[in-house]
């Protein structure tokens, strides 16, 4: 056929690609994402380095200065056994920002594998695992976590495993839905027609196309991991004393709130709220950018 047609088609510029702007460029222009990222980075910095620069040892009690209000010496005051609240809040980011990401990572990896298997194989595999997931989801997360932690005793690694496992079905459900919408695309039978096996199709063909929902899901999960772990700590089943962890600090001190000693509790609540909102803003920003 035509050499003429061929060359003409090459010389004419094809229509520009669908995405005029890259995902990072969109993120950089999203105020919500930038605020969220700044908050998260701030707390990550505190988690890593705060012990080196805070004015007081967050664990050191001072029974002569209990419940003293904010002052030049103690910016945020002291708690019931005289520990410096400012130092405790900054260092308090440490445990939650170690446990929550690890739990999220565990839940995301397991959930992705389970979701891929369910979505790709379908049939009875999907039906059985789906039923199990429904069972897990018909108990509130915090209650499942509570039950297991009571049985095994609270410890950092148990909290990570329990929260990770509890998140697995949620991630799996998202991944499964993403796989199902890929599964009916023709590149899947096309791969079978060059003799590819199930593992190749799941991990090399389908997985690269479903990163966006997985990344978004992981970020959303991170927010909920912080939420859940803080709640567990508050209930006494998460991070254990004497850690300056926020949830724990609130649990230890909210009893004196009515007495007017608000500074023992308010910094930790503001810190927790800012962190979860920050993570959520990042998640929302990512979701919008990847959808564009």
């Amino acid at each position: 056929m035509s050499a003429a047609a061929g060359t003409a088609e090459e010389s004419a510029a094809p229509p520009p690609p669908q995405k005029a702007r890259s995902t990072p460029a969109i993120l950089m222009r999203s105020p919500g994402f930038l605020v969220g990222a700044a908050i998260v980075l701030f707390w990550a910095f505190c988690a890593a380095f705060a012990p080196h620069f805070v004015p007081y040892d967050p664990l050191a009690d001072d029974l002569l200065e209990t419940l003293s209000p904010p002052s030049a010496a103690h910016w945020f005051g002291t708690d019931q056994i005289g520990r410096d609240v400012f130092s405790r809040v900054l260092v308090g980011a440490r445990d939650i920002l170690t446990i929550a990401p690890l739990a999220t990572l565990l839940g995301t990896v397991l959930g992705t594998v389970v979701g891929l298997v369910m979505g790709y194989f379908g049939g009875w595999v999907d039906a059985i695992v789906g039923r199990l997931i429904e069972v897990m989801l018909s108990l509130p997360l915090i209650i499942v976590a509570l039950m297991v932690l009571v049985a095994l005793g609270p410890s950092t690694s148990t909290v990570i495993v329990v929260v990770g496992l509890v998140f697995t079905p949620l991630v799996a459900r998202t991944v499964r839905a993403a796989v199902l919408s890929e599964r009916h695309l023709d590149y899947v039978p096309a791969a079978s027609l060059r003799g590819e096996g199930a593992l190749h199709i799941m991990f090399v063909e389908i997985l690269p196309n479903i990163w966006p929902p997985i990344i978004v899901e992981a970020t959303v999960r991170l927010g909920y991991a912080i939420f859940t772990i803080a709640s567990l700590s508050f209930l006494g089943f998460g991070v254990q004393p004497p850690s300056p962890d926020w949830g724990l600090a609130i649990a230890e001190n909210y009893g004196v709130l009515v007495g007017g000693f608000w500074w023992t509790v308010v910094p930790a609540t503001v810190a927790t709220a800012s962190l979860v909102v920050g993570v959520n803003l990042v998640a929302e920003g990512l979701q919008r950018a990847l959808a564009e």
Partner: protein
Amino acid sequence: MQSAFGRFLVRRLVLSLLTLWLVSVVVFLGAQVLPGDPGRAILGPLADARAVASLNAELGTDRPPVEIYLSWVGDLLQGDMGQSYAYRAPVAPFVGEALLRSLKLVGVIFVIVVPLGIGAGVIAALNAGKPVDRIISVASLSLTVIPEFVSAIALILIFAVILRWLPLSATWPDGAGPLVQLEHLILPALPLVIVLFGYIARMARAGTIEALSSDYTRTAILKGLPWRTVLTRHVLRNALVPTITVVAAQTGYALGGLVVVEALFRYQGIGNLVLSAAKAKDFAMLQAGILTIGAFFIVATLVADCLTVMLNPRLRAELGR
């Protein structure tokens, strides 16, 4: 159509029972098998081995797990939820009272949050892209992720400590009338209202936006219908069906959040019951409480599914098939 719906209902009921059974297995495994030796778990590592053995005999936990499970389920079917180790009394009355109190609280929560959330979501959708939408969207997004104990602290400070508008305690005096009860329940309800508001508003917004951009809405506009008719008859009808499912699913979530809220406000509901049982290692009570929560959630989803199917003719046909 009616018989198709009947068939759907029967199948859905059977599935619910299957789920309930599986939940009972999970709860049993979590509360009885996972701790290994319940007697040892209660008395601690230093206790005398004979004391542990006699406690296990007293609890009936010296038998093989399958036997324990079967007798537990057998008793459950006759309405016997077992004996509380902590109270040395039957569990069932405790669970019943706690559930009733929690349902009151959940009722208050949903009466506030459902109209608020749906209203905000629809308003945001109708003003998509405008400042109103941005405010509602950012608010719902941020509020949803704030743990209940965090917002509860803020609410207590503002409404109970500073303004003194609302009582701090969730527990009303004996014999109090409904209005007084309500006054005591508002503050504990608000943290969960804040969390659920975001979910419901976002779902309602997404559903409304989808319906607004649909071809059938465009067709309705091009029929020359007044905007109000387009909105009520064509947009909202289709937009709000998915929201119902979310509301029901969130009922289950609300029961989880109750653990935190009830502990914080010292309200003797099912969440607090589970928490105290967990702290006291009162396994019979713990089991019963968790199973009750699971059963409640299963009923809520069942109701939601039936509503969704009844409101959506296409699903009605598909599911009945």
